[in-house]
């Protein structure tokens, strides 16, 4: 099993006709993902390499049975794209776009949570989600992930997510699902949402968590792991040497007023029984130990 998406998931792409949407939409299809539709009101009736384009998400859903949307719309249009997808009844809306204003993120997160409680948002500013061998929705290079489990990965950083997948593959360890929750201030899906799903997934036997400086998401995850998780977890936090007060690229990655430091996060995770590595390679090695220790 995998969490959130698998080989039966039908996906439509908002922004399939744009250059990024097309490149990754087709690449996701080549991977084996059921890419069933694109949405663009101006190009309805056309197709992208055989994938039909519809005017609205609702029409695309009606015609194809898609339940997941992947958003490649430029930042100014993301709020209306997400709300359209939620209104049309998408179960999961994966927002790849970076640079979405925080006010928009806060608004559509709360709007969807209240009015469309069955819709989960992933992102914005995330690499997407991959259940290796089953479905790849987003910008992860599929070949760097080994299918089959037993490890689940959840990460705030895109490139570090790839790094984690790759480290595990080099050790011949498979992944059930890898979720990139994104580095923005208001992520639609949290660490805890993913940890909860991994805890409930029988095929996932251990979880790797990749966090970074800023905010308190890692501390909250540590609390959850301590109290609610039975499965072993390894972790890595990026930004150990980041200077305070400087945004390290991600809108969320900033150490301010002594809060959000990597040291505090690592301590909270260690205290929760998590094996914390000092770099992605070390976290990967710790996961190898965990997996071997489980006799897998």
């Amino acid at each position, binding site marked *: 099993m995998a969490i959130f998406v698998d080989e039966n998931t039908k996906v439509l792409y908002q922004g399939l006709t744009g250059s990024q949407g097309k490149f990754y939409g087709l690449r996701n299809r080549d991977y084996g993902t059921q890419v069933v539709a694109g949405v663009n009101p101006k190009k309805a009736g056309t197709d992208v390499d055989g994938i039909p384009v519809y005017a609205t998400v609702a029409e695309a859903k009606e015609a194809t049975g898609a339940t997941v949307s992947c958003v490649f719309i430029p930042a100014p249009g993301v709020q209306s794209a997400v709300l359209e997808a939620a209104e049309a009844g998408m179960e999961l809306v994966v927002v790849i776009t970076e640079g979405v204003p925080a006010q928009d993120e806060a*608004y559509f997160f709360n709007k969807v949570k209240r009015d469309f409680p069955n819709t989960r948002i992933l992102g914005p500013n995330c690499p997407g989600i991959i259940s290796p061998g089953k479905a790849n929705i987003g*910008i992860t290079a599929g070949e760097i992930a080994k299918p089959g489990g037993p490890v689940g990965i959840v990460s705030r950083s895109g*490139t570090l997510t790839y790094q984690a997948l790759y480290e595990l593959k080099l050790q011949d360890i498979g992944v059930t699902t890898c979720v990139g929750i994104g580095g923005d201030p208001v992520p639609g899906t949290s660490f805890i949402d993913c940890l909860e799903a991994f805890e409930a997934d029988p095929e996932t036997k251990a979880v790797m968590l990749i966090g970074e400086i800023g905010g*308190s998401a890692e501390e909250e995850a540590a609390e959850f792991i301590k109290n609610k998780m039975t499965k072993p977890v390894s972790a890595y936090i990026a930004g150990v040497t980041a200077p305070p007060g400087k945004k390290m690229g991600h809108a969320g990655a900033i150490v301010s007023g002594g809060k959000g430091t990597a040291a505090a996060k690592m301590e909270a995770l260690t205290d929760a029984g998590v094996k914390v590595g000092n*770099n992605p390679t070390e976290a990967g090695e710790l996961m190898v130990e965990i997996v071997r220790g489980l006799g897998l």
Partner: protein
Amino acid sequence: MDLLEYQGKQFFATYDIPVSEGEAVTTVEDAVAAADRIGYPVVVKAQVHVGGRGKAGGVKLAANTAEAREHAEFILGLDIKGHIVKTVWIESASDIAEEYYASFTLDRAAKKHLGMLSAEGGVEIESVAETNPDAIAKIWIDPVDGLSEETARSWVEAANLNPAANDGAVDILLKLYRAYTEGDCDLCEINPLILKPTGEVHALDAKVTFDGNAEFRHEGWDVIDATQIRDEREQAAHDKGLQYVGLDGSVGVIANGAGLAMSTVDIVNQVGGSPANFLDIGGGANAEVMAGALEVINNDPNVKSIFINIFGGITKGDEVANGIVTALGRVQIDAPIVIRIDGTNAEQGRAILAEHASDKLQSKSTMIEAAKTAVELAK
């Protein structure tokens, strides 16, 4: 983007939030002329992107022209925690009966807007939060609902201000919330928010941070952007649209993605080196971006080696490799480059680099190996 006090006040004024009349000037002569126009007493206030300017002597009251001149001469050019004062704001002095604190920001854990109001203003809110947390009245606002007058009123009542301030505070907070949301702010803070002896409530200071991601829907932000404090390297990177933070080591770092860039900086430290910078070329970076990044790093005289760490997702390995080759053809890069590429189109990228391999350009297969090599070369 952090606004200077006067920019914040001008922003507040567009939402009818009462602020003192004033002028921003950059010379002593202009300061004196502005003070004379405004009428005494005036306050001469240093405009810097750093707190604690009062203690540093950057805020002074002037009762007449001679004092205005004396203070402007002292404050212009003053070094406040490494920030040289280039602009002063001259404003009409206010009589103060009481000082409060008010702010809006995003509470990332709650995923809602957080409003804070306190009867204990004029001091750092962090210290109030530590010593007397009950003195801060907090409300969490769902962005879908917004802030209603009724909610604002009960919030103000909970803060136990002087009752004479309540009506004025409600009015200002409603306007401040509009400014915060419509203005795409990460932070809107008034400290102190004052009650005058005459009963008016007034914003005596303004601390505002704009969310740079929202620049596309706001006019005039380029003016604010131009007053941001960046060192030369940061400015050059900013002009090329790169995410750059200057550090003080000798290994230039280029990576794609904020997480990987942070991790690269960490690893350089862990293997005994010291990074010269954090530089994220972002998602989907092409040859042009890569060439620009190398130019920025190349202009840093402290850089003795360059570590390029790429894991292709939306960024393609072959384009990165082409960028490096382009940059090498375009500018004389003195420091040796160590590169590690994995992910999307990594093989094509490595093949392109192999054609140009030299003692100035080498490829390593793991992050740690590449970091060690770069650190060694920087010695």
